[in-house]
């Protein structure tokens, strides 16, 4: 099961973070939420690295392949979580966090989840009343994110 879904704008500010917290105690939930937020926040280091590879470290062919691919693959893992990344052409990032021992997710499953989130995000920002850069309050997007957390 996915634990956290985050939509991050091009300036690395969160637009939406939905977490599936396992604890029942309020303090523990808070601590777990903070851990997840920090984990997603730190995962952006790897996202930035993948989106802005050093010129010397990649050949032009590799770079163009990297740029064309929106799915960034596995980002980072620790003993509790592992994160997958996806970045749109406008540098909006999606991060999916699953448990460290979760081997259910295959690559194609994660890609499908990201495509679904991307589509919901596009619908959300098509709302003319949405100001770019503001937190996403789209009910449809939030429902999609929660659906990913529950069903995946």
């Amino acid at each position, binding site marked *: 099961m996915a634990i956290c879904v985050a939509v991050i704008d091009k*300036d*690395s500010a*969160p637009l939406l973070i939905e977490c599936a917290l396992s604890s029942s105690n309020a303090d523990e939930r808070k601590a777990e939420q903070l851990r997840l937020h920090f984990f997603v926040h*730190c995962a952006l*280091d790897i996202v930035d690295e993948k989106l802005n590879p050093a010129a010397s470290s990649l050949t032009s062919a590799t770079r163009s392949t990297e740029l064309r691919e929106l799915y960034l693959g596995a980002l980072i893992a620790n*003993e509790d979580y592992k994160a997958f990344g996806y970045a749109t052409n406008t540098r909006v990032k999606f991060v999916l966090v699953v448990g*460290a021992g979760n081997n259910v997710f295959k690559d194609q499953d994660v890609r499908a989840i990201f495509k679904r989130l991307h589509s919901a995000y596009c619908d959300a920002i098509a709302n003319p009343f949405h100001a770019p*850069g503001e937190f996403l309050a789209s009910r449809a997007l939030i429902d999609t994110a929660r659906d990913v957390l529950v069903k995946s």
Partner: protein
Amino acid sequence: MSAVELLLPERLSQTAESLGSADNLAKSSVKITWCGSQRAFEICCAPLKSAFVESTVPWRKKGNQFPTHISLPLTFVPFDSQLLISTQPAHADRNKLDCALCHLYFIDCLDVEEYRSSVRSDVVEWFASMRDAGCADWLIIVDSSRARDNKTRAPLIERLKSDFAKYLAKLIEIESGSAGSVKMPALIRSLKEMLVFALDSLIVSCEDALQADKERFKELDWDFLSYVKSQLALSDLYRSLGLRDQVLAQCDEIEALLSVLISDFGLREEKPKWLQKMLKTDSMRCPSVLRRMRNGKEEEKEAEMSLLDFRLMLLSSQLVALLDLYSARSRAQPSANTSRSLHIYFCGLILQYTHKCLTSITDELASLQIQWDRPERNCWTALFSLEVFHLCKALCDPAQVDSAKAYTCRLWIEMCKAVNDLGDTCGLVPGTNRSEEQRLVTNKLTNWLDASADAAEDKTDDALPAAKLRHLLGSQEAFGHLMQKMHESAMAVLKHFSWKRHARLLGNQLANFLVKSDRLEGALPYYSKLLNSLAKEGWSTAYVQALESVVTHFDAQPDVYAKELIDYAACLAVDSSSAELRRTSADKFIRLVAVKHSGASIRLEHRRVPANPFVVLPKLVVEPVVAIPDQPIDCRLTLISRFPIDIEHVRLRLCWRSHSASTTQLKDRLTQRRTTLPRFDCGHEAEAARFSCVTGVNRLLAPRASDAVVVQECPGVFVVQTENESTIAPGENNLVLRGRADEVGGYYPDHLDVIIGSITFVVDIESDLRALPFRVRTEPPSVAFAPLVDEPLGGVAQSFSLDICSGTDAIEESSKLTIRGVEGSALIEFETENVWSNQLVVDMPPLKPREKHSLKVNLCCLLESLVDGNAFKAKLKVDWLDRSWTFDYLFNPIIYLKATSSLLEDKVLLEVEVIRSHGEGTVNPIEATLLESHDSSESPSVPSKLMNADLDPIVPNSRHNLVWFLSRPHKANANPAAPREYRLELRYTVGDSGSKREYRYCDRLLLYEEKADYELCCQISSQQPQAVLCRADTPCDLVVSLRSLRFERTVETVLISLDADASLWIIEDRQKLLPVKESGLGQVAFSIVPKAVGYLPYPSIALRKCQQKLAGEKLEEFGGQMRCFVRTQGKQVHVLSPLPKTTAELKKGASHLIHSK
């Protein structure tokens, strides 16, 4: 000096080369058995070994396209039938890799007799063993040197050939000299060929067996460890052959297979036996990778091992293979540049392999739910990372390996986390008391390290990381020192690789450790950095939650973190999830802002995180919308306070910014902040074939108040503020701010300063409000002049409105305003107290600023002479205070006139048609006179006789004719061609008959009295026989008779042309030529058809000259019009209705209708 260097010696004596050297590797070589003559073997052994060591052999592995060169280090062992590679089923389970590849029998006989008596039986027995095992890899080597000396070589060789007649190729003769030299090229060649063949067969056989074994992986009783051992044995063979790449590939293959198997079986309930055995033990026998690398073969002999041990054993095998490869390549490429790149490359590979191992262990611990003892795990992680860095340091600094930065960073992070957890678990935080339980845990870990690695006694560098770690577990001070150094080193590396967020999070971890160590002053900068980072990137939830846990630490240094304390208190008072914390933070905020700070006031500028506690609703009202300089301005706004309590003594200051910045300072700031930054970043990336348009979100939202500090002091900015200190209650607050603007310009609200004691919150204004229209401007005196009706009329008095405004400046003295018509346009008369003049002068009193003055102006635009019905333009000019205004208006004539004259012999009639077209109201003619103008010396003019003296009112949209009878000139010397001038005067009133205002229209008429050339007379008669009257639709004849009125009659041809309304008459031929005879008479008939019934007017007739064609001239159709008098002009003819159709015609018509349908 980094933390790793603290733990490691300055000089790494145990280098990677030593770990990967041949001595450290399993001794493996190609095994060959020998049998027979000891002397001959001893003569051949050394030369054979050296010959194979010095040269390589080309070998093409099955499935490979190209051969590889392998080395064949030989080992000779005495013959044993157990070393035969058997093809027999009874010997199939024997490990082929332990068998010998080739078997040699040495014969050293003096003659045939000796051979027969002592050797033959032995060699036959040896040969039988070969034959029984199905082995073909054997050679019989005959040293014939002694027989040659005895001259018995030939019979001996012959006898051998006869005994082994079928295997002559396997009989190799060598010659050894007296000094121990030996000539055996044939032996070497044959042995190489045989070994390559045997090796090929062996490897193919082994790989097939391994493949077959691997395919049983789904069986629950399949032994994975046995398979791995076979793989590793094969890899040893590869290593002995010098195929180091192949060795590493074998290890990788095992690692990949293990990952796949665990991923597959981990999810199943029923697990294979080998996995169950691995999961039974949840500990690690030896945590040291370096130790395992050295003692790898001993590990492999273990019958059972845990998954963790297996992973580490596999990693050690990979690292050994890697270092072996490195050693071989570094020997092959000794140059400095190549060596450096080789170091970096292999360092990256080591980091990659170790990272993979760490990740796999972490994943498998989680997925298989292995409960590994937490302190042991942390201890292992720390030791593992230290050892990896130790190993890497032998090659190069891992921070230089860009290609492996992710692995390096991950190892640093894991190591720091493990060490930090160890500190907590073992009570190693300086200044804290260690509990008995913590001591026990520490002792257990120390013993684990000691027992597994023998670190205390081992003098090699491999043991140093373990020994150092063991030492640290016993000392709080050393641990504290290490902890800080390690985190600082880790943060430096992470920052070097641009993992800044991870670095800040490690800083937070270090700060927590420092707080626990009672070193708060060192911790606060790390907390502050993390919070600033979260705030900068807009992570509000994480910011607030992190703040809640650390905010109390900042109270220790209120002077250093004064601004932060206020900011944090405000943030928690607004956004904390705990109501209690919100209230206490609000109280704290009130206390903090009441403190007078020594420095300048603190400004908390707008940013997304933490959110501003104040919000301005988009309901800002400003009065007046257009102000003049120095005029009081009121702004009413609604401020929302998100504080849970009332905030007293608040002053508000709303800064307005000019649309057109006038100061250099403001321009510079605007240039930096807005102008140069595009709203969108668009670009085409050719390599990706992609065009992207990225929104600059921050620029759109423009959190711009950060430049307010400077801007509000600029001349282009003015401020409105509260007059007194206010109390801001939670929720909405309606406030009024007042101020004055000095400079002219358009302004928009920029930001609101909420000043509470020593702190100022800069509240951004909604972008919608920036479109609020507000201007400060100066207005000059203005004049507006407009008619009171939509369409002013000429020829009648009209009322206009004159609106005068003084502008924004007072007019302190009286002035005169003049209105007049502009020369060249229509004449206009103005009324002043019932007196009409061509200009109007108005005396203006002194006026206050913005004072308006209006008055009504009556004017009359005079009608043009014999105007047509179109509107005519009149231009007015107003002069006031040395300024001029010009106004253009279109006047529609209330009446217009058309004059025609009729002459016949001595009589002249002048007909003036008065057309009432525009506007409403009746025009009442009072008198119409026509006087002939002439010199005043002569007798006074006599008015012409008006034929219709009774003048009727002319209602709108009607015409009225005035007809004068004019007398003919009676003077003998008067020129008949000269025009006669008349003066027409029409007096009239407009509107009701009781209207007192009388208008007079005067005009001059020039009348030409030329005699007519011909008199025309027309008559219409029906073409029907015996018919008198015309009928509609029946052709008629129009007979035109002409009579010349000239005194001298001439013969000429004239053109008679007809014209008529097409709805009344159809004229077949419109023109006809008419020759005038000498008598001056002529007549012509036209065929016309009346189309209407009743009295129809005669068609109009015109007379034209008929041009004569001259040679070379183009003949125009008509000549000039001739003057004529039409006697029947105005006459009408009575047209009857058409005759009824006959019955036959009706039937014909009906039939036609039916057919047409």
